[in-house]
């Protein structure tokens, strides 16, 4: 591999990582933690948890689930699987594009 190719290959890899990890963060934390009540159509108040009619997701159900609850208990996990799948596909393509031929790595002490 040429030095310039190497740099380009690594840059692409890092770009893929940044995009995929942003999705990972968004789904796990923005949707799954910070806005989970909003997605469920409720809000936390001093008197406990109450319905939040202002949320556009109030009353919304996805196959019987409130959206925030579903993301936390099902959806996020599916997204994680999908993210790794996309990464595998992208990297295999990148390897092909750069003509990287992988040999078996010899594990050794030396």
């Amino acid at each position: 591999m040429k030095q310039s190719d190497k740099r380009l290959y690594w840059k692409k890899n890092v770009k893929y990582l940044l995009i995929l990890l942003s999705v990972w963060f968004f789904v796990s934390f923005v949707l799954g933690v910070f806005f989970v009540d909003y997605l469920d159509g409720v809000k936390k108040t001093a008197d406990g948890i109450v319905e939040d009619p202002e949320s556009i997701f109030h009353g919304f159900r996805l196959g019987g689930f409130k959206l925030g609850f579903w993301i936390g208990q099902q959806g996020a996990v599916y997204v994680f699987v999908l993210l790794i799948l996309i990464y595998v596909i992208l990297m295999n393509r990148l390897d092909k594009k750069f003509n990287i031929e992988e040999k078996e790595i010899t594990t050794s002490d030396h």
Partner: protein
Amino acid sequence: MDVQIWTYIIVGITFSIYIGIAIGARAGSTKEFYVAGGGVSPLANGLATAADWMSAASFLGLAGIISFSGRDGSVYLMGWTGGYVLLALLLAPYLRKFGKFTVPDFVGDRYYSQTARIIAVICALFISFTYVAGQMRGVGIVFSRFLQVDITWGVIMGMTIVFFYAVLGGMKGITYTQVAQYCVLIFAFTVPAVYISLMLTDNPIPQLGFGADLVDEPGMSLLDKLDGLSEELGFNKYTEGQKGTMDTFFITMALMVGTAGLPHVIVRFFTVPKVSDARKSGLYALVFIAILYTMAPAVSAFARTNLLATIPGATYKEVPQWFKKWENAGLISWVDKNKDGKIKYGPGIAFGENADGKLKPQLLFDKAGELQRGENNEVKLYNAPSNNSNELYIDKDIIVLANPEIAGLPDWVIALVAAGGLAAALSTAAGLLLVISTSVAHDLIKKSINPDISEKGELIAARLAAVGAVLVAGYFGVNPPDYVAAVVALAFGLAAASFFPILILGIFSKKINKQGAISGMLAGLISTLAYIVYFKFVNVTDNKPENWLFGISPEGFGTFGMILNFIITVTVSKFTPEPPKEVQNMVEALRYPGEAKE
């Protein structure tokens, strides 16, 4: 045939399979012992990783925890799966390219420092030992519950089996038994889940049935019903979360990053032939884990609905058989506080501490060794009733254990669940024992104390270390330290705060040097250790939100330690000399799956 005979048959068959594999997959070299020769297919490695990762806590405990915490349980579901994204994207491919045997190998070579290597070994040993104690205990508990064997004998049987394939086969033996164990455990988890989903919602897929309408009440969804039942009894709604947002964030992050930093999981990616295989096995692993992790919350909701719909308000004398069976085992207990003969269930703890000062029921026996019983023929307890109105104690483990009986499934399904629990506990225990023996034989003896040791000598040392580790783990299984549960938070916190940042930085930056890595690791390790030890062991009564630093619970503090580690590693590296050229070249080479040579 009764349950016990079925259990002996099914557990016997699965154990013979494990031993058979162990004999067929003996390790002949250190390479085979440490990384299965580096020739495992990505699919097999994915299966093995899933079994390695899913412990007795995932199989028995997860559904139970969620069942009792509702939406708040999401932290475990996201936390214990999201880490695989980090692992597959940020660590596995590069560490595979590195081409050595252990995590301390990487730390020692990348940071060209024996000190860094030793700190990494200590962290790896500490994390693995804390974890393995719980697994052996899990083996003992499954044996004692299903086969009415004494816990000690259960642990000894578990040790014997693990001894066979871990000591003889090393990573090679472990890998192929884990593949078999995954199949056993997932089958055992799925069968009752599908049955119950069909029964309650007429949908054979638990992940969908979980959101569907009830068969008995068309138009009423299962979760609405569950919310309603919970509120009627004074509990919070099942689909609402009570935990503070910031703390939830910190805990979820600590679990994710901790997962990605666990040495026994990372080392699995060293067993595949190529970098692209490491990526692929990350994908397979998460797919196989996700099958159980998306089914578990469905099982939780099904079991909770069943429980709340049938037990509260029922007359004790008319409760189903499973209730009495698990009452005899001390996993369900009832105290008739208002003397009406009916079971009242609500928030609050039903009774006080047992003789050991724990909030677990302690059954009373008469001189003949029979259980003492009260007016309604219920099992009597040593524990005094508490002053709230809740009369019922339910152990979290019951959710998975009693599921087949609650659903009225045939006896062989109950036996299958026992075999599944054992598979989950044994597979994780074996993976941990391997890390321990590798750390001792390879990282300590070969790389630190006696570099001239022959290959044969190292293999013998690895086997002896494995024997030692099995014995220590067994000892902890029989005499569990009180703090097993608290210590799991510690293992994740430490993995997050010590390993993760310096692994990532070591791959993605060439400028991070040994001074940075050592100070960062120590800062993360010490701060997290101090915080968790203070709130979990030293001053347990202070463990309240108002005393926590920035409102972070001990479970979430690993995230703080991790951030601290990142900051210190980067800052110290800025003000100290760059790493030598050959180390920078090594980092460069990690980044390309092909040969780095021009």
